[in-house]
Structure formats: structure tokens, C-alpha cells
């Protein structure tokens, strides 16, 4: 048996300068080994080559507001955004009324931020959401309380993107859960129907669903009867997303051990109680990461509505680019759209990470 003797002098020794502080961090993270050192140096060279020209292009030489000076200039032409901002963001919404979609969006963002904290999830908040959604609808649609009516054909830009995604996702999630439960059901008919639905929808791309809803579906309606175009696209997005959510949730359901079901049954809980109180809370927690990636990709997929000529954020931007005055500044315009999408998606993934941490029971 060896005896460890602690040398009292050694306790007072400072660690070598190369293992703490900036130098230590760099040694540990950037230069620990030949391969990593080479990678670090290569990355630095690459950054050095690309970053300064980009900054020069995007900020130093850039034009921010002037309309005409852009052409022939070296830097980025952000004027394509600033001069067309209202059309890009609000589409055809009548100019004097554009405070309404703005207010509706602020309301939505405010509610989303307030609801981030789970300790605030209570009945009043549910009512606040209901009131919020209704007032957003009134703000957009008008025709009440002295607001002039604005037809949905005039909705466009960012409010349309948010509308399609927020309603699409909130409606698709419960539908997906129900479909997942149906697929696990012991009732043959329900199970078959769910399987057929999921496989059918998952087997076709969203674009073809959107085409069906906007090109094929109206032909079956009697002449003169038309359904709102936004509604048709919205339904297609909901149906599509729900099928994917269903499969993700099914994965969660299968991960719950048999014992949980049996324990619930032995306590005398019926099917719905079992699901609501025991199985789903655990299953849905497991599938947070995959469902958030589905939600994020569904959010980005809403931009596919350009093919049925709905003017969402991407389409309004493209439309601006077809103006001869702004033709050729696509890089700037697409960077702007990418930033908007990134902010929304980053918010979603960040929130999901937080939710995961809060719900973590270390089981």
C-alpha cells in the first residue's frame, strides 16, 4: 500500500503560465496536437482572407439609403431594402393601414416572449392568448370597430409568413399527436386510417400539396365558388406538418417502457387518463429536439407558397428584385431575408433548449 504524502509547499505553487489564462485556453482548445494546430492556422488564414473584404463590402463601402448612387458602387447596396422596406415587410397591405399588421406582429412577439417562462403558464395567460389572437385577426382583417376592411388577398410579407407558420404549427402539433395515438391504437380502422394518412402525406413533397390545393382543388368546386387562397395554403401546410409530427411523437411513445402503461392501468386509469397524465407528458418531453427541428423546417417551408403566388416575405423581396432599378442586388436582399429567418429559427431552437433543461428530470 503506497502512502501519499502531500507536500505543503506544492499546494502554494501556481500552475505553469502555459496552462492557465489566454495562453492555456489556446493550448487546450486550438493547438492541442499537430492536426488541430494545422486546422487552426488554416481557419485563421481563411478568415483573414474572407472577413475583411466582406466587412468592407457590407459595411464600409455600403450604401444605406441613397437610391441612385448604388449602381456601379463597390459596396453593398442596402438601399434595396431601405427603399422598399414597407413593401417587403407588408406586401400589398394598404399604406395608411400598415400600422395594423405591425401592431399585430408586436402583439404576437410580445405574447411569445411573455409565455417563454413556464411559471407564467396559467389560465389568465390562456385567455390573454385567445384575446390576443382574436385582436390580431381583427387588426389584420378590419371591418370592425371603425377599421376599414382589408381583404386577405392584400395580406403579404412578414405578417403572412408569421400567420402561416404560427397557425400552421399550433394546429399541426395537436393533430400530429392525435395521429400518433391513432397509429398506436388497437382499433384496426382507426389505425389503418392514420397509417394511410401519414404515409400518403409523407410520400409527397409539400410543393405538390400546395399545387393540389391551389390548382387541382378549385376545379372540383362549382364554378364561382372559391375558397380563400391563404386558407387553402394554410390547410396544406397543417396537413403536411402534422404527418411528420405524428411520426416523431410515435417515436416518443415507443420509448416509454411497457411498465408505465401497466402501472397506469393498474391504478384504474382509462385510456385518455393514461395518455394525458402518464404517457404523453413523458413522450412529448423525449421528442422535444426532433419536433423542434420539424417546426423549424416547417417555418422555413412556408416560403414555398411563392409557387402559388402568395406574397410572403421571400416573394415580396423577389418582386422588388424584378424592378429594373433594383435588379442585380439579389445578394443584399437575400441576406436580409436570411437574417429575418435566422432570428425566428434561432429563437425557436434556443427556447427548445431551455425547455429541455427545465423539464429535465434526469430519468
Amino acid at each position: 500500500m503506497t502512502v501519499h504524502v502531500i507536500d505543503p509547499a506544492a499546494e502554494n505553487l501556481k500552475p505553469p503560465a502555459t496552462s492557465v489564462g489566454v495562453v492555456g485556453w489556446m493550448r487546450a482548445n486550438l493547438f492541442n496536437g499537430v492536426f488541430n494546430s494545422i486546422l487552426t492556422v488554416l481557419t485563421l488564414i481563411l478568415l483573414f482572407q474572407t472577413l475583411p473584404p466582406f466587412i468592407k463590402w457590407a459595411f464600409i463601402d455600403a450604401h444605406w439609403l441613397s437610391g441612385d448612387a448604388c449602381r456601379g458602387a463597390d459596396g453593398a447596396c442596402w438601399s434595396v431594402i431601405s427603399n422598399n422596406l414597407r413593401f417587403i415587410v407588408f406586401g400589398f397591405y394598404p399604406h395608411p393601414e400598415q400600422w395594423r399588421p405591425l401592431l399585430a406582429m408586436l402583439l404576437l412577439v410580445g405574447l411569445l416572449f411573455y409565455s417563454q417562462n413556464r411559471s407564467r403558464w396559467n389560465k389568465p395567460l390562456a385567455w390573454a392568448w385567445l384575446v390576443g389572437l382574436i385582436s390580431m385577426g381583427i387588426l389584420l382583417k378590419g371591418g370592425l370597430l371603425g377599421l376599414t376592411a382589408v381583404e386577405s388577398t392584400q395580406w403579404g410579407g412578414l405578417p403572412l409568413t408569421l400567420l402561416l407558420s404560427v397557425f400552421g404549427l399550433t394546429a399541426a402539433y395537436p393533430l400530429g399527436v392525435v395521429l400518433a395515438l391513432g397509429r398506436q391504437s388497437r382499433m384496426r380502422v382507426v389505425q389503418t386510417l392514420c397509417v394511410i394518412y401519414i404515409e400518403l402525406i409523407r410520400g409527397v413533397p409539400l410543393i405538390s400539396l400546395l399545387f393540389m390545393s391551389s390548382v387541382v382543388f378549385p376545379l372540383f368546386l362549382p364554378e364561382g365558388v372559391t375558397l380563400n387562397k391563404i386558407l387553402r395554403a394554410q390547410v396544406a401546410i397543417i396537413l403536411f406538418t402534422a404527418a411528420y409530427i405524428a411520426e416523431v411523437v410515435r417515436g416518443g411513445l415507443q420509448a416509454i417502457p411497457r411498465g408505465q402503461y401497466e402501472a397506469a392501468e393498474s391504478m384504474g386509469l382509462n385510456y385518455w387518463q393514461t395518455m394525458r397524465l402518464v404517457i404523453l407528458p413523458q413522450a412529448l418531453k423525449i421528442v422535444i429536439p426532433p419536433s423542434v427541428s420539424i417546426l423549424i423546417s416547417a417555418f422555413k417551408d412556408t416560403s414555398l407558397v411563392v409557387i402559388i403566388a402568395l406574397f410572403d416575405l421571400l416573394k415580396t423581396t423577389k418582386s422588388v428584385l424584378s424592378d429594373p432599378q433594383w435588379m442585380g442586388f439579389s445578394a443584399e436582399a437575400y441576406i436580409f431575408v436570411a437574417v429575418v429567418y435566422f432570428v425566428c429559427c434561432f429563437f425557436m431552437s434556443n427556447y427548445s433548449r431551455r425547455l429541455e433543461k427545465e423539464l429535465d428530470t434526469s430519468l
Partner: protein
Amino acid sequence: MLLRKLIALLVCALVLGLTGTLWAGTLDDVRAKGFVQVGVNGDLFGFGKPDAKGVWKGLDVDTGRAIATAIFGDPSKVKFIPLTAVTRFTALQSGEIDVLCRNATRTLGRETALGLNFAQPNYYDGQGFLIPKSLGVKSAKELDGAAVCVLPGTTTELNVADYFRSNGLKMKPVVIENTAELAKAFFAGRCDCLTSDASQLAGTRAVAPNPDDYIILPEIISKEPLAPAVRHGDDQWYDVVNMTVLALINAEELGITSQNVDEMLKSKDPKVQRFLGVSPGNGKALGLDEKFAYNIIKQVGNYGEIFERNVGKNTPLGIERGLNALWTDGGLMYSPPFK
């Protein structure tokens, strides 16, 4: 039993409802709605595109406004519905729109198989080539082996392939999805020439880093009569749309503009009197107000005014009248007499 009866009743109601809507003419439907629904492009500068304030601008858009003015005497009683190349004909067939003014080429197939009726063309287009001067080419026939920038999936792509084949020339198509990106690729030198409808070439040339370095070749390799379209089987509505476009042309022939139309009301010329409804007859025959032509010209302008405002020399497109000049000036725009 009750259920079966109910279903039978429902089916009956549906069929009745169907025939009901079929019987009513489009003009009556439009009057009842209080506005015309016009399908437009949405992305095509000079023809149909919203400006920075979201106000629709363009030749096709103004044609739609003229139709609304003919019916209601008010150019604002119109709703523009942006459509893609794929959805445009379905939208018309399903009744989502009343008339399509979306730079659609009149072809036999569309007249028959698609069940459309095309009115008088409001723009005669054709496909041409844009090349850099440095290429030193004077005619499209010298483009053997050229890399050609072209949009995919349109008749443009087929036309250029046909043209090169029939002239025994070789080409390398460079296919790029989006008009703006196509122009960018061309100016960056990815291809030797760019082909598109002539109306677009002028606009593309205008946004070149140095427009004087590029020329449009004289050859026009296809015929593209762009015309408003309506559904088969409603002759009255077809007449309204057709005569509206012709009224724009007739006004220019008669020298009536939005500026002088009020003075022209006092004209002694019987042609002008009949046209403006001073001596009645035309309006009643069409089922419109006697003043329909006066309203159109007063509030929207004649064909020449619409042309110059949207695609003419003082716009970024800078297109010459060419085929779209009056027949008296060597163009194709010709209106039958309004009597």
C-alpha cells in the same frame, strides 16, 4: 332512410346551385360583386408588378383597370390577383378570376384544349437575343456554338432550340431559374448571349453595368401575341373585354387622349361622336353604359398613353413602339370601326 333522403336533397341543391351559377353571365356576376377580378403577373416590370408602395403598375394592369372602367366607370373597382405561369389558367377556369391579363401568348392549344378565348392582343412580343458588342456578331445566324442564357420551362427555351436546329447551328444552353439571376450571369460573362422576349431584353440591357457595351440583335425568332383571356362560352363577357382593348386602340387612332377627351365630346366627327357615346348605340349593344369609352379614355388613357407610361421610351424598359404602333405607323394595332 332519412339520411338517404337528406343526401338526395343535398345533391339536388348542389346541382341546382351549379346550374344556377352557370346560367348567370360573367358580366352580371361582376356587376353583382361590384369589382372585376383580374389575374396579373406580379413580377414583371412594365406589365404587372406592384411598386414600392404596393400599388399595381403595368400595361396588363392598366388593361384590367380599363375593363373595370368600362363596366363601372371607375378604374379602382378591380382586384388584381398575382398568378404564376402554372396557376394562371386554372385560376381562370375555376372562376377565381374573371379575366386574365398576364402576358399570356395566344396559341391554338390554349384556345381549344384549355377552353380559353383570347381577346385583341395588348402587346405583340417576340423572342430576341442580347449580346455583348465585343462578340462582334451582327446576326443571330452567326451564333454557332454559343452559350445561351435562357429561363427554364418556358416557350423561350423551346423556341431558341428550334431556331438553332433549323439553322443548323449548335448551342450550349445555360439555364437559370430567375430573371434577375439570369441577367447577372450574362453580365458576368457566363454565356455569350441572352435570349428572352424582346420586351424584357431592353430592360435587361438597361440594368447592365455599361449598357452601351450590349446590343439587341435584329432577329425576332418567335411570335408572341400577348392578349387578355376569358373562359369559353360567355360571348357577352368576351365582347366586353375585347372591345375594351380595341377601344384603347381606337381612341389612339382617332387622336383622343385623356387630356383632350372632354373637348372631343364636342367634335363634329360622327366616328368620334359614336365612339364617345355622344350619339348612343355602342354601349347598349355591349350591355354597358353609353359613356364606357369616354370613361376608359378619361380615366385610364388610350393605348399609346398606357404604352408610354409603362414600357415606353421614358421608362427603364425604353421600348420602341415597333409592332405595337398603330397600323397607320407601320405597326399591328388596328381597331374595327365602333359602330
